[in-house]
């Protein structure tokens, strides 16, 4: 596929549409799921099963006035929501959904996704700093310390997988796991790793995904009971909408990465009918788990959050990295 302007525009439109659609309907799924867990019906008035709720919410948000409070740093204030959404959409460029569905297959795909993912923290910092609001400020300080703390074990775990695969190309990583379910990186026996600690790597990566996307139980950045709404306290209208969409797009990307790195991407567990549907199935199971986790656990404290990262996840992931390196040297 040649990289013409038309191709690029179509890819961008598809990426934005995919991100927006996911964001809208994950909110619906989240509200319905939360309701089921709490034995409520959830949104069910607009349309069958409340399926018209997300577009109506979107229309409402777009119709509202965009208020910029006095005394804010205007440039940063306007830039922050855009910056929340933009890295999320950029990351979709290199995520392969199947052998053929990928916008641009890069040799350094992982590097690019993590580079853009770390820009997400910047948007939170901008939003909190520019809002001229103590709650937003507090929240952005928390969010950044959290992002820094959890990026380390996440990257170390990713390096472990990259060492096993010997490649930073996401396609290549999936191809190495595609034979059967036992070749997936999460399972240690038949794959390239021979590392019995791989399930723990998966857990570490998954926990870091939750923390990096500011999801419960690590949603200290927008702890609504203490900090009003956190960094987006001062945002209304589509500014708030973009933050919201960015958050859900990040969840999708995090789950995509978990699927690709540990769960064999679009490979079928039994070697039957490989294709994009397996990828989507695994992706949405992971997302459902993330929603399930949110409605099970209460929010951690900031000490608990940082202790988990610095005292448990980082030492364990470092040990796992060294252990894997040793195994690769031996076998």
């Amino acid at each position, binding site marked *: 596929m040649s990289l013409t302007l038309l191709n690029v525009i179509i890819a961008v439109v598809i990426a934005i549409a995919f991100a927006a659609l996911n964001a809208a309907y994950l909110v619906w799924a989240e509200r319905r799921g939360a309701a089921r867990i709490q034995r*409520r019906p959830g949104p069910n008035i607009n349309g069958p099963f409340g399926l018209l709720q997300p577009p109506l919410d979107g229309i409402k948000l777009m119709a509202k006035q965009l208020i910029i409070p006095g005394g804010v740093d205007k440039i940063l204030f306007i830039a922050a929501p855009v910056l929340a959404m933009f890295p999320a959409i950029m990351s979709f460029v290199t995520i392969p959904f199947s052998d053929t569905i990928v916008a641009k297959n890069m040799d350094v795909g992982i590097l690019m996704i993590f580079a853009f993912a770390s820009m997400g923290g910047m948007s939170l910092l901008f939003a909190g700093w520019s809002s001229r609001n103590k709650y937003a400020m507090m929240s952005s300080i928390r969010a950044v310390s959290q992002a820094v703390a959890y990026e380390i074990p996440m990257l170390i775990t990713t390096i472990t997988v990259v060492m096993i695969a010997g490649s930073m190309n996401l396609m290549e990583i999936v191809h190495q796991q595609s034979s059967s379910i036992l070749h997936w990186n999460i399972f240690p026996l038949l794959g390239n790793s021979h590392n019995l600690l791989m399930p723990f790597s998966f857990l570490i990566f998954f926990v870091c995904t939750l923390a990096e996307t500011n999801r419960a139980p690590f949603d200290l950045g927008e702890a609504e009971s203490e900090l009003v709404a956190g960094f987006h306290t001062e945002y209304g209208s589509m500014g708030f909408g973009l933050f919201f969409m960015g958050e859900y797009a990040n969840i999708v990307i995090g789950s995509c990465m978990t699927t690709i790195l540990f769960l064999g991407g679009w490979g079928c567990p039994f070697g039957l009918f490989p294709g994009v549907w397996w990828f989507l199935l695994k992706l949405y199971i992971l997302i459902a788990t993330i929603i399930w986790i949110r409605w099970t656990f209460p929010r951690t404290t900031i000490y608990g959050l940082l202790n988990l990262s610095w005292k448990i996840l980082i030492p364990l992931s470092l040990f796992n990295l060294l252990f894997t390196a040793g195994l690769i040297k031996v076998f």
Partner: protein
Amino acid sequence: MVAYFSEIYNGLISLFIGMGVTFKEFFKPTVTVQYPYETLTMADKYRGHVELIENDEGKPNCVACGLCARACPSGCITLAGEKPEGAKKKVLTRYILDFTRCSLCGSCVESCNFNALEFSKEYNLASTRKEDFIFDLLQRLEERNK
């Protein structure tokens, strides 16, 4: 060192137990009553404002003796009756309940010897005007029978 790992292990197990609890709850039926669309039937002993009981012909059982009005500690009840030509009993002509002062104590229902008063199951009462809560029970009875 052992404490460190046992803490991680126990923490992890407790997380899975918690997720098991919510997983089970997910498949249980919902308990919400969607109020304007669905309502629960009220309990037998529910006390709404009092209502007149009618006899087989659709007329009130009340003989306008006035015991309920006398029993009412708040003076909510005003009633009047007359004796038509040739009839044995008095017939009720007016029964006004001032619900703004009623505390639903039930003294009127207890004092009635003619099985003429009961608590209604009415709870959808909301208005911005005081006058809406001064009920003409005789009129309500006629409206019920229409």
